[in-house]
């Protein structure tokens, strides 16, 4: 049972969290023309690094979405960043 740090709630068991995807994906402005390739990249491309990864997670019990930096080999959690501008 891994333990992840929710930026708001603090450390909680991994079962309270949901993996949302890799960090840094920007949704293309779909009101403008976007090529199939661009859209496919947004939908499907993965860095899938072996080592340090930046991922978006949701803490299901409090709904907080945040960025977690982990090591995908050792499973060590290296830190979190909140998605909110006004994190307090």
């Amino acid at each position, binding site marked *: 049972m891994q333990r992840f740090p929710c930026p708001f*709630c603090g*450390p909680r*068991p991994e079962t309270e969290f949901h993996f949302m995807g890799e960090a840094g994906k920007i949704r293309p402005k779909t009101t403008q023309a976007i090529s199939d390739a661009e859209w496919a990249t947004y939908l499907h491309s993965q860095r899938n690094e072996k080592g340090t990864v930046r991922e978006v997670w949701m803490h*299901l*019990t*409090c709904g*907080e979405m945040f960025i977690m930096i982990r090591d995908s080999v050792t499973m060590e959690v290296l830190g979190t960043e909140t998605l909110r501008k006004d994190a307090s």
Partner: protein
Amino acid sequence: MRDDRNRWPAPIARRDPMTVGAAQLQEVALTRQTLVSGPSVRTTEAPLIGWPDLVLTDRYALCLRRDQVLVVNGQEDSPGWDATAQRAVSDVTDGYRVFDLTGPSAHDVLQRGAEIELLPRSPSVARQLYGLGCFLYRVGRPDHFRLHVSSAHADAMCGHLLAAMKATSEVLSL
């Protein structure tokens, strides 16, 4: 479709107090539960209860998340978005059933449902217990725990708690 009417025992609407070993489970009737969200609800609603705070008042606000609280026993509040107060309000009194778990082995019972330690502190009382969502906090005494569980899973939560109370009562080594 599969007729399971006999596979599932009928739900218990209001539970009578039940003691197993050194733990007691009792259903609690609250007058009102109000879900309130907004950019600043954590500062406007008081007293704000987190983990492992002890509730000492009749009316209190459970901190569920950064921008959401559950006001317990508050006054009636009109549902919807209040633009001036910047508050979103829903009356969820019937959405959650509330149970008190008390006694010397109450904590052991909870530890069968999740890693429940008094530290570290957590601003939020929302967590998973036995894989089900709930709001868990303490009332008055250190060994008096209270949990809110969504009405539809209340029976399941009680089933878990009773199974754990039974297991706990059989533990001599603890």
